[in-house]
């Protein structure tokens, strides 16, 4: 038990690691939704189809167009908490990677602003009157903005863990970092996001079907096919990523501190796969299989986040940071945070309930 992540670390370090991983999981799940959603919208904005299958007007596409700006806002907001804890945990490596990537890194801010507005344009009614080429450009553009941000984070993460490359990278005036791990790692993230994102979209489809009537049978089946494909590709990319890692990182992933997470994560992926296989044969979105898929996705993302952290921990001299973590843990304010976390979570629940009740009263109204 004492070897298990995060218990082998002193309490302050373990506490910040736990908070970081848990808040990261929330961010990752929302990010999965946004990444998959924008990819889906990009595809249907290019391959629009024609009657009787107008992909842009499919229930999935309509839901995504409607929800995507909020989802991006929620993803960014959810990202603030792990961004806070990462600064306590890995101050120098995180800051140095930010500084080394310089303009390239900072460009994610305007790129995300652009992506946000493109998503609002996609949501607007007037885009339907625009030429097909422009619609495709907007859809693909939004996806590129989100994918670029994901790429930049991966680049930053990899550079942060390689202190030996920093002076040379800086002296050469480079602002783009490439490492053999970069592409397979990105592929794991992207393909792994598909089943998780599709799970969330399927919940929305299920709620909509219960409210507005039956869904076309192809919608749940398409979600299952995409998710199973995503799982298969993520597994292949995972093997590629493992092979691209250095020996220390490989040993870390299969080492005793995270082995239980690795095994549980694999079981969770198996459960998620089973859920999608069941869904493949169904003509409607069944709560049982979706529940299995969701539980599998949650556990898989949690375990993947722990493994991700373990790899970083072998690359950063975390022992040298124990004292800083202990000092940070001594400052006051934790109970105030906990109090407002509970209060504000309750108020968020109240907001959702208010809206839910109003929509039950007026189920014929359309959302704008």
């Amino acid at each position, binding site marked *: 038990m004492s070897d298990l992540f995060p218990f082998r670390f002193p309490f302050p370090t373990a506490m910040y690691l736990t908070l970081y991983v848990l808040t990261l999981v929330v961010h990752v799940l929302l990010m999965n939704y946004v990444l998959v959603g924008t990819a889906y919208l990009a595809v249907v904005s290019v391959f629009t189809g024609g009657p009787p299958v107008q992909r842009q007007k499919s229930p999935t596409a309509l839901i995504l167009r409607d929800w995507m700006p909020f989802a991006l*806002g*929620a993803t960014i907001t959810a990202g603030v908490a792990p961004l806070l804890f990462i600064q306590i945990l890995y101050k120098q490596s995180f800051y140095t990677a930010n500084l*080394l990537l*310089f303009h390239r890194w900072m460009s994610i801010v305007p790129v995300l602003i652009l992506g946000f507005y493109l998503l609002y344009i996609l949501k607007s009614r007037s885009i339907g009157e625009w030429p097909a080429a422009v619609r495709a450009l907007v859809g693909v553009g939004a996806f590129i903005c989100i994918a670029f941000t994901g790429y930049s984070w991966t680049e930053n993460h990899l550079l942060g863990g390689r202190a030996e490359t920093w002076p040379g990278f800086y002296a050469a005036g480079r602002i783009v970092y490439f490492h053999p791990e970069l592409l397979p790692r990105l592929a794991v993230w992207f393909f792994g996001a598909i089943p998780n994102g599709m799970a969330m979209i399927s919940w929305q489809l299920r709620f909509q079907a219960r409210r507005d009537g039956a869904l076309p049978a192809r919608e749940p089946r398409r979600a299952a096919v995409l998710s199973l494909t995503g799982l298969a590709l993520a597994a292949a990319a995972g093997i590629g990523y493992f092979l691209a890692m250095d020996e220390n990182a490989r040993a870390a992933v299969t080492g005793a501190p995270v082995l239980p997470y690795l095994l549980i994560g694999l079981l969770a992926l198996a459960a998620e796969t089973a859920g999608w296989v069941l869904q493949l044969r169904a003509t409607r979105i069944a709560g049982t299989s979706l529940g299995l898929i969701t539980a599998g996705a949650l556990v898989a993302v949690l375990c993947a986040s722990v493994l991700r952290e373990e790899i970083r921990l072998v690359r950063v001299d975390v022992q040298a940071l124990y004292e800083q973590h202990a000092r940070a843990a001594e*400052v006051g304010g934790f109970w105030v*945070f906990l109090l407002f976390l509970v209060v504000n979570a309750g108020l968020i629940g109240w907001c959702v309930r208010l809206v839910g009740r*109003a929509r039950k009263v007026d189920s014929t*109204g359309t*959302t704008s």
Partner: protein
Amino acid sequence: MDLPHYPINDFGPVMNGMVIGGMGIFHVFLAQFAIGGGLLMCYFQWLAQTGRSSAARRFLDGYFKALVLISFVVGALTGVGMWFTTIQISPRTIGMMVDEFHWLWATEWTFFCLEIVAGYAFYRYAAQLTDRARVTLLVLYSAAAWMSLFWINGILSWQLTPGHWVETGRVWSGFFNPSFWPSLVFRTVVSMTIAALVACVVINTLNGVDREARTELIHRAFLFLSGMALMPFLGIWYLSSIPEDSRSWVLGGSPTMTLFMSIAIGASLLIGVYAAAGILRKRLYINAVSAGMLVALAFGATAGGEFVREGVRKPFTIRHTLLANSIRPEEIAALRETGSVTNDPFPLPHAERYPTEQLALGAKVFRFQCSVCHTENGANGLTHLAGTWTPDQKRLNIAKLQHTKPFMPPFAGNPQELEALVQWIEWFDSGRPGDWPVSADDRTLEQIKRWLDEAGTEPAQQLAQRSAASVHE
């Protein structure tokens, strides 16, 4: 000594402070719009549901759309951008702020989450909601937005007026610091002002609302400007809460600070005059162009105010604790012995440009100690400021930097580094020739050492504090 060295980026002719200032002003303006906007919408919702204004409901829809499209997107992302920019300029400052206040920052984050959920719930479903539900969401949204100001205000005001935190190290002593309340009240009034002015722009864009209804809406929005009457008093309250030296720079000691302060006051005064006319004359109508101009004036006032707020902290980023160049005052004595860049692992980009090792050392010293506020020869360029000084003048003025200018930090290197910096300025000012003699006169270095010793390692503010205390004794 645990002095971290980070790679330092060169922004060319733009000084680093301008980068963070530009992003900061933009973000603060949008964030304050969001805060005031929430309060304004609560008021208009109340007007609508109590039947006091028939056009208020339509205004709410238009205004909220503007709030979501501008503030939720650009405001939120420039907020994240502020963190990234601060890392670019001074990672050690943001690191210390995060270490000290992370639980309060995390608390602020819980309010962000509430703000975004309540805001979007209103944005998406307002048309289907009862008045009671609408006002509930708006109150939650605006309370969450204002609370985010509450938390960040404590953290930012701590940088200039850390108060008893310096002695106790306790987070609440730092948070509820001397300028906390004046700054919070002032910013709340500013937020209401910005919200009201943006409202006048939005009112002009509403479809299907006649001139009479628009005039009435504008008059209602203008009532939100009445808080501006308090601004002179709040300004005096704020000025009285900041350190004496910082106050003296605003009140004529530093022409630049005074100029920016005057811009902020002048722009606010113009808006105030317009506001008074609007409140007193119920029939005053403001068209979109005039309203846009008033918003621009408010932006100018915010820019001036934020520039002053950032500037009066000099030479610190966290008063008494961290200097603008990311060196702690208590580290200077050791750096005078070891050298400030001896352990800097980051080589100079284009090191081949420097004809001698000494010039390369000078460039490194400039990068580490000066480049956060100065460029080579662009904005606030070092060669412009010191280029006309004779070499001995440079040596003396830099060695006794905190006495030369009280808003400058003490020089934090050894005599060899100081001489290298002097030679680098001379070389740069001479057009960077391919050959440059090495200055290795022991007597010069001894003289620099004497001057450094005479200057001491304390920043001017601490010296002044100490001498004031000894006078009292």
